[in-house]
Structures are given as structure tokens and as C-alpha cells.
């Protein structure tokens, strides 16, 4: 899929061997181990959430299986003051940013309190409609620039989302305004059942930036070091006033679009087993082990800790009270108009109290 005019970055190949000259940070043991831990947390959480959905404990959930390097790589490259405008598959990136697992579970269960995350306060909630968040990111970047702040807006979209008019219009604005915004495409090859080659006839999605003067590049989205590197550089450039960037990460969606989907209807099983060979965790573990930073015991104790952390989050989530029925009127307006006060009173009257919603 690479195109000679579009830069492509990869450091870790599928077998864990290194190509080219590694950037300096790759020698930072603490940083790279943190990336690995975040990726593992994401995958364990994902497995747990899917199991919960299958047993009726969670509604529809969009797994990120196979795309952990993308999410963890870009989110780790952001500073605390940058703002993320995520899409629905970005739970793992939100975890890196500080959103609690329990909050993600609440959000998945339709409880708005899950989007009221305590950290990071300025990040946006997941956009479930496609591509709407791209324009929000441009507006936020403009506001930051106007106020003289050095923050950068980062927004994500899928390969399918790049077909939406919103995406082109947002990039065009960002180009004209030289707004500090990074557009990240998680090209996982599928938009539900629509494969990449039926989404666009463009050889790369990164080149879509050319039309609007936004530089585009591709990165191996299964290589967390490569993702971290190119996103860090793009953020640094945007922070120093050099304007927006478009980065297309090539990943594989190793499972269904969501728990409501069954990809076996439309995806070749052989293709999937080929793609599993390129998944992001093993190559990083090989790198860690080659560096002498990681062994079997480290792995086991990390997984135990992560599973305990996830279990605690699930317990807290399942112990949280259902919202009160009258809460459905909360936050509609700064002050609830009289006619809605009357409708709210009707709901309360039906319960004899504020109502536990059941």
C-alpha cells in the first residue's frame, strides 16, 4: 500500500527485528516498558469487555484487538495539555491519557457519568458518529492558537471515516488556518464489512492531505515505536507553529467491527490468520527481551497486576447505582424551562420519588 511519494515509517518488523536507525527514545527502558504495559492493559481489558458483552453484562462494545500499538503509541506521544478528540475505538488511548477503566465501562453501558472522566478534563468524549470529531478538533486548535497556547489537538478517524465530507472540510480548514491539529487515520482495513479497497481508490489515505496542503505520511500501526516517533514529531512541529499533519497508521482489525458484528460473513479466514502474524505485541516483547529488559516472570507478574486492576474496575462498575430516573432531564439547559419541569415532575410522580430508574 505504500506510495513512493508518501513517507512510510517502520522500526520493528513482525519478527521483532529492527530496521533502520532507532530513534533515541527506544533506549529509554522506562518509556518503552510503559508502552508495553499500556498495550497489555488495553488487550486484557478488551478481552474482559467482550466477555462481559457476551454474557449480558455490557451492551455493544467495539474491540480494539490488534490496534493497541496505534492507540498507545499516539496517546503516549501527547502531552497532558494537548486535547484528544477520539472516536469509538479509542478506549485504549483514553486509558493512556488517564481515563479510568471503570469510567470506560460506565460509558459503554450508556451511563453519561462515564464521559465525565476526572482525567484528562479537557479531552473530548468518544464520538460515535463518523468524522464529526475532526472539525471539533480544528475549532479547538484554532482557539488554542488564538489564546497563544502551545497545546495541540489530536483527532482520530478510521479508514471509512476518511470518506466523509466532514473529514475533508476539517482538513481544509486546518490547512488554511495552519491550526495545530494532528489527524490520525487508524486504517485497520475495514469499515464494518467494507474493505479498504472499496472505501477509496486512492493508493494511500495519507495522500488525501495533498489536496488541501496538509502533509501526509504513513506509519506501521503495528509498531508502537514507529507510531510514537512520527506522532511525537508531528506534535512538536504543530506546537512550534508549523501547522497540521495527517498520519495514516496501517493496522489490522483482528476481530469484528463490534460485538454486534460477525466478520466471518465477509472476511476470509486465511487473511485473518496472515494478519495475526503482524500483530503488535509479540514484536515489542521480542524487542524488550532482546534488550534484556523483560523476562517470563516480569510478564507473569504484570499480567496478574493488570487482571486485578481490571477486576476491581468491573466490581466498581457493577456496584454503581443506576442513575435516578429524573436524571434524564439533567444538563439539557443551564436552567430547565417550565414545560420540561412539568415533564420531569410527571416522571418523579410516577415513582413517588426521584426514581432509581427501574
Amino acid at each position, binding site marked *: 500500500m505504500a506510495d513512493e511519494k508518501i513517507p512510510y515509517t517502520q522500526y520493528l518488523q513482525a519478527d521483532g527485528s529492527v530496521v533502520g536507525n532507532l530513534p533515541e527514545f527506544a533506549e529509554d527502558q522506562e518509556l518503552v516498558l510503559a508502552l508495553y504495559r499500556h498495550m497489555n492493559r488495553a488487550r486484557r481489558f478488551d478481552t474482559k469487555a467482550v466477555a462481559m458483552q457476551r454474557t449480558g453484562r455490557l*451492551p*455493544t462494545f467495539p474491540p480494539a484487538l490488534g490496534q493497541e500499538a496505534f492507540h498507545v503509541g499516539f496517546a503516549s506521544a501527547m502531552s497532558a495539555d494537548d486535547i484528544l478528540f477520539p472516536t469509538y475505538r479509542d478506549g485504549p488511548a483514553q486509558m493512556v491519557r488517564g481515563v479510568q477503566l471503570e469510567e470506560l465501562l460506565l460509558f459503554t*453501558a*450508556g*451511563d*453519561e457519568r462515564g464521559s465525565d472522566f476526572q482525567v484528562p478534563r479537557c479531552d473530548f468524549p468518544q464520538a*460515535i*458518529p*463518523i*468524522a464529526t470529531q475532526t472539525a471539533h478538533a480544528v475549532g479547538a486548535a484554532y482557539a488554542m492558537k488564538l489564546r497563544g497556547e502551545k497545546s495541540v489537538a489530536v483527532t482520530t478517524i478510521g479508514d*471509512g*471515516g476518511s*470518506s*466523509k*465530507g*466532514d473529514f475533508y472540510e476539517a482538513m481544509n480548514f486546518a490547512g488554511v488556518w495552519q491550526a495545530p491539529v494532528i489527524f490520525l487515520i487508524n486504517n485497520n482495513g475495514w*469499515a*464494518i*464489512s*467494507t474493505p479498504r479497497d*472499496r*472505501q*477509496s481508490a486512492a493508493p494511500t489515505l495519507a495522500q488525501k492531505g495533498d489536496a488541501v496542503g496538509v502533509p501526509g505520511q504513513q506509519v506501521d500501526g503495528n509498531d508502537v515505536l514507529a507510531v510514537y516517533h512520527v506522532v511525537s514529531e508531528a506534535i512538536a512541529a504543530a506546537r512550534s507553529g508549523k501547522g497540521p499533519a495527517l498520519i495514516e497508521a496501517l493496522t489490522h482489525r483482528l476481530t469484528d467491527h463490534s460485538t*454486534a*458484528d460477525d466478520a466471518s*460473513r*465477509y472476511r476470509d479466514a486465511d487473511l485473518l490468520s496472515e494478519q495475526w502474524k503482524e500483530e503488535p505485541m509479540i514484536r515489542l516483547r521480542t524487542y524488550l527481551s532482546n534488550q534484556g529488559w523483560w523476562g517470563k516472570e516480569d510478564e507473569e507478574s504484570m499480567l496478574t497486576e493488570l487482571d486485578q486492576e481490571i477486576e476491581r474496575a468491573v466490581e466498581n462498575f457493577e456496584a454503581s447505582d*443506576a*442513575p435516578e*430516573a429524573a*436524571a*434524564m*432531564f439533567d444538563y*439539557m439547559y443551564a436552567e430547565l424551562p417550565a*414545560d*420540561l419541569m412539568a*415533564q*420531569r415532575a*410527571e*416522571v418523579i410522580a*410516577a415513582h413517588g420519588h426521584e*426514581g*432509581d*430508574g*427501574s
Partner: protein
Amino acid sequence: MAELTYRDAVAAAIAQEMRRDETVVFLGEDVAWAGGVFKTTVGLLDEFGEKRVRDTPISEQAIIGAAMGAAMTGLRPIAEIMFSDFFAVCWDLIANQIPKTRYMTSGQVIMPLVIRTANGGGVRFGAQHSQSIENWAMMIPGLKVVAPSTPADVKGLLAASIRDDDPVIFFEQKSLYADKGEVPDGEYVEELGKAKVLREGTDATIIALAAMVPRAMKAAERLQAEDGISASVVDVRCLVPLDTQTIFAEIRKTGRAFTVEENPRLCGWGAEISSLAMEECFWDLDLPLIRITTPHIPLPSADALEDEALPSVERIYNTVREGLD
């Protein structure tokens, strides 16, 4: 008669019409290889091939724009918008282009197209994927608006919509997809613009649409069983054309009318029926028409709150019983 689900009736209607008319084509996101995200169009790709059953990129404006262009040049396209909420991103086509073209070309151009969509709540999809937007479509001159409540009506009314020479917005209520019902065998086409009296009654008239119809029926049965109240239930089926003749006749019989609407309260279709009934049936009314609606709020996705917000059997039962007190 065969028993079909509401979702299977969608594919059955499309297949029936594609077999008899080669100008009927079908396009949308994930409609072909995946058989629709709600599995409403399974089997169509296999039977009719990729030239007539087409997956598209995620581009709602292009889906509806292309369907419009095809309709203007001799095809009868069926376009799917996955969730009715997404009408908002292609609203220029739906509100400004499609319904006005016949009018502005003095009838030189016809617009035989159907936009099918999964509408409404009940499945925890949240404020941006659960809206009941039939009232948005209803207020645009030039569109026809259909919202079936049973598998038989899905088949009969969708077939009629496809054969219609005007643009039809076809709202499938997504919480009904698994519902089963008898569907007539063979070619089956209903007439647009006809309400259906599902239950005759003498004390109250309950007027409902789509997913509110089965709830209204259950409430009516309970009113009869527990309180001896005899309620008729009218399934509106089409908002445009609106079958005021049937609706008014049922209102006049009892003098006590209730609408059950899934849409948020303000400017819901029941407000229009209430206004019309006041003009046309005023002297036959014993009570002001009472509207049972979702409050005027975005639909919450938390289980408990969504159940609370949508009109329930319990709320319909209580409102009618108290209204007659």
C-alpha cells in the same frame, strides 16, 4: 401465510420488487456483503449480484445524492441510511433536493426512490443513534412517510413504497426487528396512506405508530381485563399521506383520544393529529386529546433511563385509565 421476522420482511419486500422490476437497485453502507448491520438485507447480494446490490463508502450525502441522480434517470433506487439520525448529515438532499425536483421541473422529472432507515430507540444506542425522527420527515412537503409496526406491513408497505413514483421515507423501528408475524405468501403489496384499526373499542381511541403499536395493544388488553375499559387501537402506518378519515372516524366513536408517540414531545406527529381533531371532531370530543410521548429530551442510553423515557405499556395504561376517570 408464512411467519417472518420484521427484519426478514425487509429483504423479502426488496427481493420481491427486484425480481419483478429490473430498474430497482439497492445501495448503502454494509448492505451487501454483511447483509446489513441489522441483518435486514441478507441474501440480496447472492440473488441479485453486485451491480444491483451495492456496498458504498461511508458517505451519506453521496449515497442519497447518487440515489437521487439514478431516480431522475430511470432507476428506482432504494437507499439505506444505517441509522435515521444520520439523515442530519444528508438533510440537504432529503429536504431541499429530492422532494422539490418534481415540483420545480413542472413534473418533467419524477423521483421514484425509497430511503430506508433504522429509526427509534429501545436498544440502548444513545442519543445520536436512537432518535425517532419521523416528524422531521413529516414536515417536508413532497416526501411520503411510512412507519410500519408488523412484518406484514413491512413487506406490503415497502413494496408499495418502491412502486410509488414519489420519494418515500421508510422508517423501520429497530427494536422491532426480531418481532415475528404472519406475512401473506406470494406477491404482496399494500396501499400507502391507509391507517389500520387493530382493535375496536367504545370507551377510548389509542392512536399509535411503529413500536408504540404493540405497546398500545398490550395496554388496551390490560384496560379491558382489569378495568373493563374498551379501547380501540389505530395503527397510523403512514404519516404522509395521513389517513385522517379512518383516524377521525375512530376518534368520533369514543370521543376520547390518546396518541402514543416515540418522538420527543415538542412538534411530534400527535400534535398535528390533535390539532386536526380539534378542528374536525371538536363537537364529538368528550376530553381534550391526550398525548403520551417521550419527554422532550435527547434519548438516554442507560437501560433504566431509556425504559423510563419511552412510553411504556404501564404508562399508556395509566394515562388512559386516569384520563377516563
